[in-house]
């Protein structure tokens, strides 16, 4: 199924959490819109992410057995939201789906998707240490790549590079 068919199927099935669909569009001089290139994705409410992913995995027509990626993005310092980005893949139907969720920076927490896909466990650990997102119900919220006492959340846009760590200069 191509993206439009998948989006259609999702909206017809009235899946909880589906907010909107973001399609690529060419730039428009009249509205001064710079346009959006690339690939489309669906926007999902973070609070209902677990139900949404469960539907994607268990539905026959969609059949997304594999969670390819779960990550986050801090679009800019001024933006009040953090993006949670999920990529799904269906092996038997040979199609993909991109999902985006907006999490307000003031309330950075959402339920953990490890119950749905075991692959989410390590991806969520990385998001937690890099962005400071809290995934409720995560079985193992330790630091993944950074040392245990590393200050700050490195992937945020307002991150300041540290000057020294344990007496060794960082410059």
């Amino acid at each position, binding site marked *: 199924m191509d993206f439009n068919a998948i989006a259609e199927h999702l909206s017809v099935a009235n899946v909880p959490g589906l907010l909107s669909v973001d399609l690529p569009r060419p730039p428009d001089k009249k509205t001064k819109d710079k346009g959006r290139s690339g690939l489309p994705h669906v926007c999902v409410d973070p609070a209902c992410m677990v139900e949404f992913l469960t539907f994607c995995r268990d539905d026959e027509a969609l059949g997304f057995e594999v969670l390819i990626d779960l990550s986050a993005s801090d679009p800019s310092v001024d933006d009040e939201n953090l993006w949670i980005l999920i990529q799904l893949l269906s092996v038997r139907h040979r199609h993909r789906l991109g999902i985006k969720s907006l999490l307000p920076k003031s309330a950075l927490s959402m339920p953990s998707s490890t119950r749905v896909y075991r692959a989410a466990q390590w991806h969520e650990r990385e998001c937690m240490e890099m962005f400071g997102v809290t995934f409720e119900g995560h079985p193992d919220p330790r630091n993944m790549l*950074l*040392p245990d006492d590393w200050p700050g959340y*490195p992937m945020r846009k307002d*991150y300041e*590079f540290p000057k020294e760590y344990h007496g*060794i*200069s960082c*410059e």
Partner: protein
Amino acid sequence: MGILEEAFEENVLTTRVDWLLNWARLNSIWPMTFGLACCAIEMMAVGAAHHDIDRFGAGAFRATPRQADLMIVAGTVNFKMGERVKRLYDQMASPKYVIAMGACATGGGPYFKYGYTVMKGVDRIIPVDVYIAGCPPRPEALLEGLMALQDKLRRTSVIRKPARLQPSDPA
């Protein structure tokens, strides 16, 4: 060689002994398997048949630091790993030597500017004898570095303490 340092003046006997000991040492430098990143693959290529490191006597890669003379730091050292590098260096028995292979071990490499967790050169924690440039250095460059180390060993003496590089001060 603590008891012999400064005990005699240099004479024909000590130079003969020096020559013999240095010849024995430089023709049997046993490296420790310390491949960290991409340079490790070129180190493995040096250990393989085409660029043979065994003809220099340095083919017996020991996994344990207690039996190794040489630590070839091949790859990027970050703060988490640096702690272990220092511990392994301390576990090696004297006389011990360090080759910093590649741009990352020499001075941070391509991660110099924006790598917040990368240690900018392994000489911040351990004294380095030979630096090899390259990203990754060709196997021939590693062999040249080994030969430079052998030249350094030819100049050591039982009655003189060898000049060692100190870890550079944190900036």
